[in-house]
């Protein structure tokens, strides 16, 4: 460590410590309602962002491997978070201490600042915003849960943040005793008697309403204390969602030299992995006639299902057209070939060519960014397919491991020359809720030659590309063969290895050599975030 560096560190430290606002950071958990107004160095800016990103990635990977809310999930999450540079999150306690120590103050400040930096990086598109909000919410839920049943601290925390919830009076609760018991998950009237219930407008308990886990009357939701976190999360989510939308609209107007924006955009790409939106077609253009063969060889089960449904019914409903159409775009099917493909199939059925042009052609062009606001729609990731847009009556889309009855799925797998033992393994993963792991096993058992994948699956187009690589011995791919860092299946390391093999930006962050320590004013960020 040379002298200069020490000096910089010291100066940086003193800057952060310099001014302590006694009103701020009283609790370890925060709502991030007000942007920070401090000065930090450009280096810290990048460092904080990366550290928080690692935290969010850890949250995401644990969420994929374990069912959220279970003991295993919390244990794994705690372990992963302790491995990051922000491990103070895990010893989170909402309780307000009389005197916040300097370390605690600085930790919380870092928490605050890093969150706002990532807002800048992740506000730019719908997909990014959704991802960011989802991880921040899971993180918040975890941290809030650490307060346990300490209702005094919780009340204090809520009051400080202007969230006032008072329980309903006993007589009201008595009148609604049976209704409340019937609508609260696994709870009896005894539980109702001893638990506080809060009456809030249904718009503040959206998640509980969505899953019908709450009693509603005349527009109000009656929420038991143990579900209070859901309400608070709802508030958290809507504030964050609104702020991100505002930030994203303000971003183009930012008077910025080129310090922040390039770094922010590379940040979001780097850790989110490929979204398969701007793929150059794989060597040898994909044409409509190739699809039948490709579907048998290299499509994941969800896309095979959609393809078979299409061939059988000569039709596909909207949800399926989106999921399948965008996937085909991602594998390299051009707009002309796509038109040919869909038209050929639809006109075999009840759609005459005129009707096809009027009703369906527009949608296909829209997917390719040739209509409307000309957005370049990205093919759906596994997360999106599993979690949103569930199939309804007449639909063949979705994730087969998630959206198929177990016996039917088992039957189908065995009909595809998957042995009984292999099917059992796949069904085990399905039972545990690990749909992407199940799909990866299917990959392992169905590809020829059989290989054991060393990567984690999170996108149907990724499945396709990996399969092509296996089937063609890696020769047709214009990129060098994948050289994974390690054989383990942890998300973060394999993500970066997949990216490295595809020649994109490096996975680790290195501060640039010879850069100046500029004092970056946070006012720039405040100006954007504060614009209401």
């Amino acid at each position, binding site marked *: 460590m040379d002298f200069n560096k020490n000096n910089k560190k010291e100066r940086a430290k003193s800057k952060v410590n310099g001014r302590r606002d006694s009103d701020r950071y009283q609790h370890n958990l925060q709502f991030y309602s007000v942007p920070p107004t401090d000065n930090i160095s450009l280096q810290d800016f990048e460092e904080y962002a990366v550290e928080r990103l690692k935290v969010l990635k850890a949250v995401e990977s644990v969420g994929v491997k374990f069912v959220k809310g279970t003991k295993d999930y919390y244990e794994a999450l705690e372990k992963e978070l302790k491995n990051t540079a922000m491990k103070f999150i895990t010893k989170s306690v909402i309780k307000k201490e009389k005197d916040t120590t300097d370390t605690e103050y600085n930790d919380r400040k870092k928490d605050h600042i890093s969150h706002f930096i990532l807002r800048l990086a992740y506000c730019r598109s719908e997909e990014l915003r959704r991802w960011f909000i989802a991880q921040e919410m899971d993180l918040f839920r975890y941290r809030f849960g650490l307060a346990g049943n300490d209702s005094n601290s919780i009340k204090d925390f809520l009051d400080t943040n202007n969230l006032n919830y008072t329980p309903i009076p006993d007589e009201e609760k008595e009148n609604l005793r049976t209704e409340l018991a019937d609508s609260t998950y*696994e709870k009896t009237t005894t539980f109702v008697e001893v638990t506080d219930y809060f009456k809030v407008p249904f718009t503040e308990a959206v998640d509980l*309403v969505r899953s019908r886990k709450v009693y509603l009357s005349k527009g109000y939701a009656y929420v038991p204390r143990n579900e209070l976190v859901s309400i608070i999360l709802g508030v958290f989510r809507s504030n964050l969602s609104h702020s991100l939308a505002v930030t994203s609209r303000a971003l183009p107007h930012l008077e910025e030299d080129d310090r922040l924006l390039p770094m922010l955009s590379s940040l979001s790409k780097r850790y989110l992995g490929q979204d398969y939106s701007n793929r150059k077609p794989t060597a040898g253009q994909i044409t409509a006639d190739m699809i039948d063969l490709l579907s048998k060889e290299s499509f994941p089960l969800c896309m095979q299902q959609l393809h078979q449904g299409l061939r059988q019914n000569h039709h596909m409903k909207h949800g399926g057209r989106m999921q399948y159409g965008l996937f085909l775009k991602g594998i390299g099917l051009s707009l002309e070939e796509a038109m040919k493909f869909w038209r050929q199939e639809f006109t075999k059925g009840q759609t005459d060519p005129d009707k096809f042009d009027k009703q369906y052609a527009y949608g296909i062009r829209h997917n390719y960014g040739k209509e409307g606001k000309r957005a370049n729609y990205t093919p759906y990731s596994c997360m999106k397919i599993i979690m949103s847009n569930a*199939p*309804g*009556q007449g639909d*063949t889309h979705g994730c087969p491991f998630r959206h198929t009855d177990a016996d039917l799925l088992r039957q189908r797998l065995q009909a595809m020359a998957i042995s009984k033992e292999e099917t059992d393994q796949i069904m085990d993963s399905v039972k545990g809720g690990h749909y992407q792991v199940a799909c990866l096993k299917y990959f392992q058992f169905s590809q020829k030659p059989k290989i054991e994948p060393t990567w984690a699956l999170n996108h149907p187009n990724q499945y396709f590309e990996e399969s092509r690589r296996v089937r063609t011995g890696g020769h047709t791919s214009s990129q060098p063969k994948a050289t994974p860092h390690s054989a383990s299946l942890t998300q973060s390391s394999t993500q970066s290895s997949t990216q490295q093999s595809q020649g994109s930006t490096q996975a680790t962050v290195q501060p640039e050599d010879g850069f100046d320590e500029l004092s970056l004013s946070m006012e720039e960020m405040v100006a954007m975030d504060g614009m209401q």
Partner: protein
Amino acid sequence: MYCKDIMYISVSKNYFTHREFSFTLKDDIYLRYQSFSDQQDMEKEIQKRCPYKIDIGAVFTHRPKDHKTVKAAAFQAQEKELVFDIDMTDYDDVRNCCSGADICPKCWPLMIIAVKIIDTALREDFGFEHLLWVYSGRRGIHCWVCDEQARKLSPNARSAVAEYLSVVKGGENQTKKVNLYDHSIHPSIQRAMKVVKTCFQDYAVKKQDFMGDEERLDKVLGLIPDESLRKHLREDYGEADSETSSFKWQALKQRVEDAKTLNKQEWKKSWAAVEEIMLQYTYPRLDVNVSKGVNHLLKSPFCVHPKTGRVCVPMDPDNIENFDPFQVPTLSQLCEELNQMGGTEDEKKRLKDYKKTSLKEPMQVFEDFLQKLEKTWKGKKLEQSDMKREF
């Protein structure tokens, strides 16, 4: 030539000029972002273009017809009624009489059930008051929730409301689409069950004969999770064709009831089998995507359906049993009724002549709905003038 009664628009909305409409012209030419400065402007445009379908969209930050002059990010949908769309096609797996775009008196009761359940739920659970139910002209119904609070809902809240009202879930690969967990049934579903129970015997057993042959019987039994219970039932039934749906259904209900006291194992898995079957066969099936978007466009009431000629008339939810989609006036019928009246060519008089045609009743429903809505603003205007006076 297609015409539409557009009176209500100027009456019901304060922000008419920023409302998006879309026209579907001959040859399926679709024009979005239509907006008008007043009722006359709109009438003129409609007469000029002769759209054969008019959709209503959201109220935007700027006049939709000027949207190209505004920066994309600044032109946003701000408010729109919360809407629901129920389409008979979504019940194809549980109705035996028709499929696709066809409907008949045997399956229409599904719509009656849907209106009763959804109307009550929207009022009782969500506190909404201003609901306009409209027949879509062919195979479905729409509901427009026009409360101020409803119009301001976020897409997230809209989809939550729609999902709260969704009980039948699952695609082609999921046979059992209703799963009630937890040994207690949510009060909203309990309320819906009451409606279903009053209609089920007549609709499912009589009209649909839903256990009438081997195929139909298999479908129903496929929804019972417990294998031994299924076996017992098959034994009860003997020769499937020889017994009626009524008998079989009664036997099924009895078996499940008996399991409560006689066979704990069966009961554990099938405690809600009867309810789940009834719900899968009758509970309303909404299209969540229609309700979710703030800028989703939906066909306007009083349009004429191009394939059936029927007018998309409002329905009275309190009198829904008496609504007959096959008696809904068609355009040609109305033209004839108007022609028969003969007399003056006075345009103004013509407009109010609808009272003498078959449109009288639906218009009454509509006017009642509007009157209630108007009262809410009158209340607000008084509030505002009070405040001004205090100042």
